[in-house]
């Protein structure tokens, strides 16, 4: 294995570690604004993972849509709803931390056993790269009906979110 692929390999592991640490901070940080920034870091790490899987278009979509749009929404919501001047209360529900932690550890052990023991039927020519043209053909060919349904859903969401969040004028 040459030196370049070795660097890339450990780079992928580093990105994974950073993403996992950021995900832990999302659940544990007391300040919600800091948690939102940690979520942005985790999402950028996931975009890096997409790049390492040669899903270039998906990485760009992740950066634009998640890190661009959804994070903007979340940061705005955090700023609009924070109670200024009030001592910040506990970020976690203390009664639930231990049961939730044990449940998550048990669930992760089950997932680990499943991933380790399942014989995944790996396709032999592994290097079938998917470029954007293939994705576009799939979206406009086989998946054209879900594609159109998604556009209707997005319209409904736009109108619905505006109606729900608007101020009532009696």
């Amino acid at each position: 294995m040459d030196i370049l692929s070795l660097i890339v390999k450990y780079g992928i592991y580093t990105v994974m570690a950073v993403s996992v640490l950021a995900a832990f901070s999302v659940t544990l940080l007391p300040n919600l604004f800091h948690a939102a920034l940690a979520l942005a870091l985790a999402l950028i790490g996931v975009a890096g993972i997409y790049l390492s899987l040669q899903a270039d278009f998906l990485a760009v979509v992740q950066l634009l849509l998640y890190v661009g749009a959804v994070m903007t929404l979340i940061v705005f919501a955090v700023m609009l709803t924070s109670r200024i001047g009030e001592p910040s209360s506990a970020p976690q529900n203390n009664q639930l931390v231990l049961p939730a932690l044990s449940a998550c550890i048990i669930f992760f052990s089950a997932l680990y056993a499943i991933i380790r023991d399942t014989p995944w039927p790996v396709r032999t020519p592994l290097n079938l790269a998917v470029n954007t043209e293939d994705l576009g053909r799939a979206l406009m060919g086989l998946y054209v009906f879900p594609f159109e349904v998604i556009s209707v859903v997005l319209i409904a969401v736009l109108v619905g979110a505006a109606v729900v969040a608007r101020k009532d004028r009696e």
Partner: protein
Amino acid sequence: MLIPYHHYLLFAAVLFVTGIFGTIVRRNLIGILMSIELILNAVNINLVVFSRTTSLAPETGQVFAIFVIALAAAAAAVGLALVIALFRVRKTILADEITTLKW
């Protein structure tokens, strides 16, 4: 693939479990929504990994991941609108203080 796909699956599993943990223990509704975004991202990673290794048509998983991202963005928009409307009425968005339906 430079690293074995088991490692991608384990990474996605860690993200998924972290998201579930945050969904359970966070008191703030926006924190719960952020944890749900983590869960959806873990699912997306799995979809992309399987589309590269095991699926017959290699673009299927990526198309599904695009649909999941679109629906997650929609869910975030509606959820945050609900949170803002709730904050306007109740002046709180802590999940254990919203107990009107709890007798």
